[in-house]
């Protein structure tokens, strides 16, 4: 029988071994990721867009809700500072696109974080305890999985109004399912590995095991999926906004701008093109980065 210090030493060495293994995995993955030109390019572009969004007010002489009576619904003009032109109310499109970026990126990140928290916890618990608990929990996920979520989100918007926090929560609550499945799969396979048994044997509580050992090790696929969820969420939010069910005035998002632009596409094509390009570019970048991460962490012949 081991005494307490021996137990601790054993656990530490088991944990440390996993850590070392983990570190070289990340290093290899990073090398592979940076070799992927599409992913690197995407990261740069995303970085630029993010910076533009953050520093938006500094980049234009106009405020996002400021009406320029002399220049209503006119095209791009570098001389008067309306680089992307103006919309039907005379508001500068460039600054509105950048403010739209703020909303879209924020919604993307926050909603994904919500889905992350719910999904990872749910999946880790299900996978860790296995057996009946896992069956029931996953059955519930199966039930929810087949539903068309867009409609439920719209329903929520209709019923409770168009609160931006509600949007975060609704979108996050919708995306957690696949995250839960992924985490549960990983957890199930991790559960049988030796260092978990070692932790068990030395009496570490289930709760601690889940948070200290399992969750760090499922990080890989989770990060990949997060990067792929963000564009989904942004897309969903744009979809809602396009229909008029998303963010409310005076806030704007790319979906709203595209909706306005679509209505006047013949006369004022720029009103559609600029927000659409930003949206498409952002979605592309996240997808490329997500693909790159997936290849980096699990290289298979593609």
């Amino acid at each position, binding site marked *: 029988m081991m005494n307490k210090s021996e137990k601790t030493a054993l656990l530490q060495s088991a944990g440390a071994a996993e850590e070392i293994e983990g570190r070289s995995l990340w290093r290899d993955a990073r090398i592979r990721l940076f070799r992927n030109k599409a992913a690197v390019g995407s990261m740069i572009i995303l970085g630029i867009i993010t910076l533009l969004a953050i520093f938006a007010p500094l980049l234009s002489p106009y405020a996002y809700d400021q009406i320029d009576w002399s220049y209503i619904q006119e095209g791009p003009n570098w001389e008067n500072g309306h680089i992307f032109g103006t919309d039907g109310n005379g508001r500068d499109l460039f600054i509105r696109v950048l403010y739209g970026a703020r909303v879209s990126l924020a919604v993307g990140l926050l909603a994904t974080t919500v889905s992350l928290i719910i999904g990872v916890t749910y999946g880790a618990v299900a996978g860790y305890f296995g057996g009946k608990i896992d069956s029931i929990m996953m059955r519930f996920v199966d039930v929810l999985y*087949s539903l*068309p979520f867009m*409609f439920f989100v*719209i*329903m929520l918007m*209709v*019923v409770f109004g168009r609160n931006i926090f509600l949007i975060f929560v609704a979108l996050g609550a919708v995306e957690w399912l696949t995250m839960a499945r992924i985490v549960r799969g990983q957890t199930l396979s991790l559960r049988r590995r030796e260092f978990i048994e070692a932790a068990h044997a030395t009496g570490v509580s289930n709760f601690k095991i889940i948070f200290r050992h399992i969750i760090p090790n499922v990080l890989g696929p989770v990060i990949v999926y997060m990067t792929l969820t963000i*564009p989904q969420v942004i897309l969903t939010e*744009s979809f809602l906004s396009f229909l008029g069910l998303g963010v409310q005035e005076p806030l704007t998002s790319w979906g709203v701008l595209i909706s306005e632009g679509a209505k006047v596409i013949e006369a004022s094509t720029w009103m559609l093109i600029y927000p659409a390009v930003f949206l498409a570019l952002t979605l592309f970048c996240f997808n490329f980065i997500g693909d790159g991460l997936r290849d980096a962490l699990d290289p298979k012949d*593609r």
Partner: protein
Amino acid sequence: MLSYAIRRLLIAIPTLFVVITVAFFMMRIAPGGPFDQERALPPEIEKNIKAAYDLDKPLIEQYAIYVGKLFQGDFGPSIKIRDFSVAELIMAGAPASMQLGLTAIAIALVFGVALGTYAAIRQNSAIDFVVMGVAMIGIAIPNFVMAPLLSLVFGLYLSILPTAGWGDGELQYKILPIIALALPQIAYIARLTRGSMVEVMNSNYIRTARAKGLRETLVVNRHAIRGALLPVVSYLGPATAAVMTGSVVIESIFGVPGIGTYFVKAALNRDYPLVMGVVIVFAVMIILLNFLVDMIYGLLDPKLKSR
């Protein structure tokens, strides 16, 4: 096969009830909805609602009555469009939506699988990159961006198709909406098929097929496609859901008189019964479809067929 069918059924039925229950309670708590006592509604509509929803009975009984009525196809009256019940409105919009939706899925399957297989066979060639690149575009560009662009290019610049409208339902009015609905799915299915095909083509049993000296067409068409298509069959469920979701926006943009258009108007007008009705109908269709797809999958995969 039977036990598999039963298991899928056991998932489908609770899902249905979750949807109905959620819809029921949503309506009850909606501020400004038909059940909000403070809201003043035009008297005729209020009368209809009182009659339809038996508001004086206990909640459980209301629920039971509601479910019972649903199974008879009675969704209650619309609160914004007078003289029409939700069921009537949905039925009015159904033909257009179904035509567009079913055609879109059929096109997506045919083109998606063909493109994906072609790209997979010529893996890593220029054709592969082009096809996958275009597919990436189809996936990343949202349909509400694609649709106006299509309208602009084909309707305005090239003038070969009407930019919007439905006319009397002639073919030319249907083409753009169908393409707009189908494109993202073609892209997705192409990518899925390609990935699946590549995996299958690298598998051991394809190596065996080649070692047996079979000609390549046999290897691909008899040995590879079967396994490669299973994920595509699985995807049919989500694909239909995506087309339904997309139809909401596409119908609005092109002015198609379908369920999607009614849904958007209802959502903007807070016509709760209509919104709930459409949600339930769509949900039911998707649940049924997923069940059907599961059955097809079970028949195709020998490991499931024999159990």
